[in-house]
């Protein structure tokens, strides 16, 4: 049984479908990368796993299980016991994700106290240990710092420390390095992967950095306008993409434009609330779109291990099937 399994999850805000019938699973100790443009629904789907979607958003799913426990049917209190301990999440902007009124030490110890407990001394020792694990030098002095006294990279390390405090089985990292300097990005990713390997956590890494996903993820999911358009092992998806969107994503990387005058990009923009096509969501922009594509929404072809949502998936040459 997978660590996390979602089936046909949708999140709607009024008339707007932010997440449209997606299904995926995460195994124990696996790194799953979720890539997509801004507005593709990657963050919203993770927030719904954590139970952090508020009014007016609504979460519907056929199945949402963690470690064989049904998250949807679970009473509020029980779910809260899982949140922050077995399932943890770190967010994009560490500078605003820490409460400015409390010290770093207080916020780490709070995470520990909520789920574990122990004497003041024990908690303090554990906090120092966590800060060491995330690579913060002189941790004893850092405990009394306030968030505004820390740099971006340091804050994100503290966030990571808070999230691993209770040894989570699954860690969701929502664009953990987007707000950081390029030099710090690599350090933070190395730290995350290192921790993941040591603790055998499931890691869901949400990002729009394709190169990163190709490097660290076991499996990858590509999202577009709230739908999953392709999923599979990272090596396969990036070497032989089956969905035109994935192909276009890879083609738009600067590396693919060596020797050319312009970067390749699909014309048009991601559909928003007011211009969602009837059929395939990519059809206005897809170079291979047919009338059938424009009228009928494609079904998911393949199984959860290698899936693509297209009428005419690309073959190994990169051309659509007949």
């Amino acid at each position, binding site marked *: 049984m997978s660590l996390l399994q979602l089936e046909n999850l949708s999140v709607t805000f009024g008339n707007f479908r932010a997440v449209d019938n997606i299904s995926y699973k995460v195994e124990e100790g696996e790194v799953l990368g979720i890539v997509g443009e801004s507005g593709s629904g990657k963050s919203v789907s993770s927030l719904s796993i954590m139970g952090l979607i508020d009014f007016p958003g609504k979460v519907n799913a056929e199945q949402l299980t963690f470690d064989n426990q049904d998250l949807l049917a679970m009473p509020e209190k029980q779910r809260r016991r899982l*949140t922050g301990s077995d399932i943890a999440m770190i*967010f994009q902007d560490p500078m605003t*994700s*820490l409460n400015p009124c*409390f010290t770093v030490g207080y916020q780490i110890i*709070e995470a520990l106290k909520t789920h574990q407990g122990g004497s003041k001394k024990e908690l303090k020792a554990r906090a120092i240990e966590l800060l060491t694990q995330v690579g913060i030098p002189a941790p004893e002095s850092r405990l009394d710092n306030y968030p505004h006294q820390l740099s971006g990279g340091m804050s994100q390390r503290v966030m990571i420390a808070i999230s691993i405090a209770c040894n989570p089985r699954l860690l969701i990292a929502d664009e953990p390095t987007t707000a950081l300097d390029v030099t710090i990005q690599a350090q933070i990713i190395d730290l995350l992967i290192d921790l993941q390997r040591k603790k055998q956590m499931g890691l869901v890494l949400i990002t729009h950095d394709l190169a990163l996903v190709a490097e660290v993820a076991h499996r990858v999911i590509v999202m577009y306008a709230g739908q999953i358009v392709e999923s599979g092992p990272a090596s396969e998806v990036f070497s032989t993409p089956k969905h035109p969107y994935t192909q276009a994503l890879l083609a738009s990387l600067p590396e693919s434009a060596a020797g050319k005058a312009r970067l390749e990009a699909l014309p048009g923009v991601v559909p928003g609330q007011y211009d969602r096509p009837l059929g395939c969501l990519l059809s206005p922009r897809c170079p291979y779109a047919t009338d059938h594509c424009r009228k009928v929404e494609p079904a998911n072809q393949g199984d959860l291990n290698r899936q693509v949502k297209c009428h005419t998936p690309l073959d190994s040459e990169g051309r659509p099937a007949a």
Partner: protein
Amino acid sequence: MFQFIFRRLSLVIPTFIGITLLTFTLIRLIPGDPIDVMAGERGVSAERHAELSAQLGFDKPLYIQYFRYVTGVLQGDLGNSLVTKEPVMSEFLTLFPATIELATCAAIFAILIGLPAGIFAAVKRGTIVDHSVMTFSLTGYSMPIFWWALLLMLVFSVNLGWTPVSGRIDVTYWIDDVTGFMLIDTFLSDEEGAFGSAVSHLILPSIVLGTIPMAVIARMTRSSMLEVLSEDYIRTARAKGIAPWRVIVIHALRNALIPVITVIGLQVGILLSGAILTETVFAWPGIGKWLIESIGRRDYPVVQGGILIVACIIIVVNLLVDITYGIVNPRIRHSR
């Protein structure tokens, strides 16, 4: 932190000078000769006029008059009342405790009701609780204070007889004036039932005076809470699995209260101007009633002195509010 305090303090001085200029010019704007004004209907002979002129310095150039005025103010000399001939400052000090007592009780009422109401409305956003709190607070500050006072008096004092109509205490009691605060003085005295009488006299005026601040505090708390609740660090706290009430009371409230403190401090001005109207209706012997009566009696030194003192109080309170804000806001607290 100290730089912040120092900068705030240095702003007080020009404001103070401005206020003294304002009160100085206001009185000089009264049409007519100041000595004739002071003499009133009786009028004054030409030589007495010249005598008084020299005595009061009206024959000197304006800037010297202003200088003498300011030095007098700094020493606490605000002139004498035209009606009672007593120094304005001592009259003020006699009557001030009554107003402070009223204002303090009103402020306590406003905070005790307004703060929780605002928090509740924010947490239960969009529900009937939210709408009722907002409606009540909107009605609260749309009301003319003096009418609210009359209405409450009509219902509770006249029709139901639950509360007294005016004054600070039943006339049957004679209380020694130890502190000037009726609640404390009655507590210290041996008279039976005096304390209860003092309390019952305070109820309606406090509610009336505190209604507008309560409404403002409720609204401000609600909007501040709503803003804080949408911040990233609240999302982090919830992602940690912390119980909802803890998220609200410990994480959100601390941050939400920071602007609310400023608002509470600014209510002092509203309380003082509301006191003028409330004291008039309830015949409460405080400085509000004193100022209004003095205006009616053309007692200009009192008016001038009263306005100056009230303005200075507000400046000091604003300064304290700013400093408290600096202490409470960790970003400013830790800056140099």
